[in-house]
């Protein structure tokens, strides 16, 4: 088992990073009824861990007995029927699903499937809570219509069903939904917290940590705890005993993007742009989200750039990221950004060196 999973806190009491949130949640569940919840925060900050621990707190250990199901739904919408396939993960008391998996048809998932699930009260109440929980992942990727229908569902079936929503950024969740939920912001853990966790893991595994090693990992991993632990394990596999100067293996896609950045800096021409396109395709095929590609690319480019250009480049990156979200095909906009960068940089080079 990965360390990430092995040392994942199982209960709200074991939580190391967001203890305050955990305690609040515990109080909330034990003393009162649980409202709808919306967890948001950057990836690797522990949203999912908190949710799992919370479910355990509510339903006891039965929440951990899950089964994965791949279910087909036939949805009748007037003129035709739509076939949807969705993978759900469910225990007796909760169901977890990612409606955004079905793409632009997510509306029907929310309208029909979630409604159906929410309607049915759990059979086995046995003195437990009289409601079941629906965990929805990646709510921020839901389309606007889907979010609207979600709002209705929340209101109508709140007697028998609680929704726990999970997303990275609450800004893409409509106001209506946000106001119906208890919003829980899960911050990225600070570096100190990460170091603490890493040391905890190291102790449990019986490892000798050279001083400052955990700090280096924490620094490298951009305040994502998951990444930190994964890197830690990777380092362990790579070389043990640790040396304080040990290289921390970078993520392959990050390396790839920095390679792209080097390409861009080296030559600015349509031909090169074409090559870059090919490489971006490769990243996209690997399911690296386009926003992350753009962000990382900007990061890499800024590292190598003269200070006077940085401002402008940041502006354009933001501009094209916005357009990317509005648009449909990310590659168009990433490419436009690269082209813009190339053209600015080329003009700059000519101006400076003639």
């Amino acid at each position: 088992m990965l360390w990430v999973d092995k040392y994942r806190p199982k209960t709200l009491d074991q939580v190391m990073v967001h203890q305050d949130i955990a305690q609040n949640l515990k109080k909330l569940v034990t003393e009162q009824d649980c409202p709808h919840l919306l967890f948001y925060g950057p990836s690797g900050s522990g949203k999912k861990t908190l949710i799992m621990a919370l479910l355990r707190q509510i339903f006891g250990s039965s929440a951990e007995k899950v089964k994965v199901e791949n279910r087909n739904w036939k949805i009748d919408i007037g003129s035709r029927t739509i076939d949807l396939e969705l993978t759900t993960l469910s225990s007796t008391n909760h169901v977890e699903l990612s409606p955004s998996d079905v793409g632009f048809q997510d509306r029907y998932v929310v309208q029909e499937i979630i409604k159906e699930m929410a309607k049915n009260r759990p059979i086995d109440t046995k003195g437990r809570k009289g409601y079941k929980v629906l965990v929805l992942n990646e709510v921020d990727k839901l389309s606007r219509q889907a979010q609207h229908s979600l709002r209705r569902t929340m209101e109508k079936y709140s007697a028998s069903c609680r929704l726990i929503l999970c997303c990275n950024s609450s800004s893409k969740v409509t106001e209506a939904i946000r106001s119906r939920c208890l919003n829980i912001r899960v911050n990225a853990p600070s570096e100190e917290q990460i170091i603490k966790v890493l040391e905890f893991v190291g102790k449990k595994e019986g490892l000798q940590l050279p001083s400052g090693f955990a700090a280096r990992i924490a620094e490298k991993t951009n305040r994502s705890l998951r990444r930190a632990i994964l890197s830690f394990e990777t380092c362990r596999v790579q070389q043990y005993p640790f040396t304080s100067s040990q290289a921390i293996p970078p993520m392959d896609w990050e390396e790839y993007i920095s390679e792209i950045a080097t390409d861009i800096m080296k030559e600015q021409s349509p031909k090169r742009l074409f090559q870059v396109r090919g490489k971006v395709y490769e990243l996209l095929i690997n399911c690296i989200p386009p926003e992350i590609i753009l962000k990382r690319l900007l990061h890499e480019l800024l590292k190598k750039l003269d200070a006077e250009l940085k401002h402008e480049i940041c502006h354009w990156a933001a501009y094209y990221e916005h357009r990317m979200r509005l648009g449909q095909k990310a590659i168009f906009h990433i490419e436009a950004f690269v082209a813009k960068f190339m053209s600015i940089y080329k003009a700059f080079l000519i101006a400076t060196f003639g």
Partner: protein
Amino acid sequence: MGRRNTIVISSSDDEDYEPSSRMKRSYEKPKLRSSVTRTNPSRAKKPRLSRLSRESSNVDEMRLAFEDFDEVLNGFKVSAGYRRSNSKELWVDKYKPRSMEELAVHKKKVEEVKSWFEERLRTPKGEIGSSVLIISGQAGVGKSATVRLIASQIGAQLCEWNTPTPTIWQEHVHNLSAGINYTSKLDEFESFVERVRKYGLISSSFNGKSKSSIILVIDDLPVTNGRAAFERLRRCLVLLVRSTWVPTAILITDYGDADSPGLIARWLEELQSSLESAGARKVSFNPITNNSIKKILSRICRQEHCNVAAEDIDLIAKASGGDIRHAITSLQLYCLKPDVEYDLPASNSILSYPKENANELNAFNGGFSSQYGRDETLTLFHALGKFLHNKRETENVAGLDQNAFCVGEKFSRLPFKMDSPEKILCQAHGQSRPITDFLHENVLDFLSDEAMDDAWAVASYLGDADLLLASFRGMLAKHSETENVLQSAAASVAVRGVLYGNFHPSPSRWHAIRKPKLWQIEQSLSHNQVNKISSVSSSFRNLKFTYKAFKKKFPPVIGSLQNEMLRQRFILYGGSSLSEVSSIATEYTPALKWLGYRTSGGLETRDSDNDSSQRMSIDEQESEISDDDIEDCLPKKQTKHSLTEIAEPGRRGMASRVTRSRRQQPSQQQEQQSRARWTTFLTKILADLLVEQVHRGNRQNSSFSKKAWKSMCDDFCKKTSLKWDKEQLKNRYGVLRRQYVLVKSLLDQTDFSWNESTGDVIGNDEAWAEFIKGHPDAETIKTSGCPIYKQLCTIFSEPTTNGKHDYSAELGGDVPSSLPSLEPLSTIQEESSSESEEAEDVADDQDDTVQPSAPGINRKRGRKGIDDAIAAAILEMAAASKLRTAAVRQSKARYSIASCIKELDELQGVEERVYFAALDLFNNPNAREMFLSLKGDKRLTWLQRKCVAPSNARG
């Protein structure tokens, strides 16, 4: 249509006809013809070489009969007989050229044709080559008009072949009922040509003007469908070319590139060239120039007394595309405006275009002149080529107008050398999304190497187009109008953006246009996603993957990657939650790659090539593309690393294995759920386990201890992931024993030998047939052999004191060596570490997959075990009873009444009383058996005794 309707003959003396009568005939002719076909069917077979003579009263009657019809048809009050009926006639017919001057065709061409005809007619037959002229040209350039005119000029009689209208089905049915056979139009044409070749046009003597020479015009070739028909047509035409002596003109209409299917165009070309090689002369007419069309149009306007602005005429002429017939018809339509009086100066108000230079006018009107224009179609690639190559005038021809919108130097572009982009888009019937994608894929090839700014502009505009296409996606499904507008706006932005942005086009040369790679990439992503969800969870239902198993099973292989991701999202989080694709992609996968690589390092060095073919990697496609001609735009091979290569090159070897083990899985699961179903593979595993136990000394007197069975169960489960219990294994053990005995007895015979490598038992057919008669079970051994015989020998052979087995000594000699450590059972080996590599892999994989995850599942499985036991018991009972009935039936068969009676008949000296008593006796099967078992002479005694006894008892 005008051409088809026109009179069939126009001999030289037609010239002085009244226009009205010309007109009348042109109306009536079609009807006449059709009525003839219907009323007088026998003529239908004749070629449509009808001729008209004024004497023919028949025609006059017809004309009268149809006058009313004409009126109704045309809706005019003027009767057909009227002189000056302006609007009644199509101008195309009305203003048919009557003199050389009126003919719009280029003088030289006309001269060429005319001189050819004159030469043909002057010289005696057969002195100069062939007497066939081919005139080709697009529709409406005046091919037939020229011929007609020339014929009338040189005073020749014109005979015209018009292709008959095809028979429609109803007509065919009607004809059939009337007893007329169907003849294909091609047949008709052939027979016509044949007649012309052999006899000339005999009918020319018909009207007593035989001295005048005759010209044959074949106006339209019959429609041919398919290669065979075309060949027939060609053969017959070539024959015609070779042998006819009547001056013949064959008119062939060229179709434009765009609107004819390639095949027909090719055939026509082929036909022409073959005719030419047969000696025909070919003259091709060009489209009529704008100026001559204009000249003719304005002449018509003058004669019709309608005032049409010069610009309009210009427009019409331009739109006609060199097709004069079309131009004239357009003009007539234009003049037919309800309010426009012919005598009034009109129409200036209707359409007024600013007088600008021709070019701009053209561009401006491009989209609007369609009411005159002929629809032209372009292929998508043609259109793309136009956009991408971005051909422009070398300089701005006309100085900008005073009131024109002024753009800065930087933003102004030279005028297009083509129609407006929207028109081209329209002609190409392109949809905006594909067009945008195509432009995106290809435009970079067409930019000059220095022009980075251009590249940005283009990319930015394409992005705009994408925004337009994406906005309101789905929202406006109901408002298709709006969506249409958006779509066309997007296409327009994309195209114009590309045209505008590409300010410094690279020097034009030939580029291949590629299919958007984006499509492939999107497809592979979404396709995987859809596919995988279904495949994933079926196999996950009862299994929980621990990390190690996961590592083994799902090394990150690009290609099925997203597929893997969805699997992974269940595995991560300890299988108790879903995780997001993005975090898997960006965090787990890379880390797992490292982990997996290091932990299994060295072990997986096998590098197979087949998985690289499964990888949907980009560089492969790039290399494919490089076969096309875009060398310079290709990235250098060395600079490319696919993501996997960077990560670690050594891990590829696992891909093939993954697929394999995945494939096995479902089948095994099935087995687990149903009764034990033994395959060769499983049997072999069991045999290996048994051998292992034998070597550990856990066999006592050819049976195994409880402990041994238990450890075997565990090992078996470990290796195959099947949780079968001791009884099931024991049953199989029994089967194996039987098999062993069978094979051994086989091999004891001299007819059979043992092939060690394949495990086959070899023997000739007769021997097999013989043996199988005795042992029906041996059938399977004959077909599939007994590959595990070695092990069986070890397992079942009588343990002689020194551990020497009769067969294993020589056959299974290598078995012990493959088991290095033979510890006694007390410490069960954790890893049975050294069988063949493959078995090891399988074992390892399964080992981790099948640990029961949660107590719930365990319970279920326990219940399942009981169910299985019950089922097995019932099945056993059923089998036993079946066996019993079979046995009974067999015994019955052997001691049947018939055979008894037969034996009885053979006995000598049976008294009648005894005989019948015996028959009674045979009702009892025991008695039958007794009877048949007895030796011959004792039978009678036994019978007599038996028969007396019952009779006594009875008595």
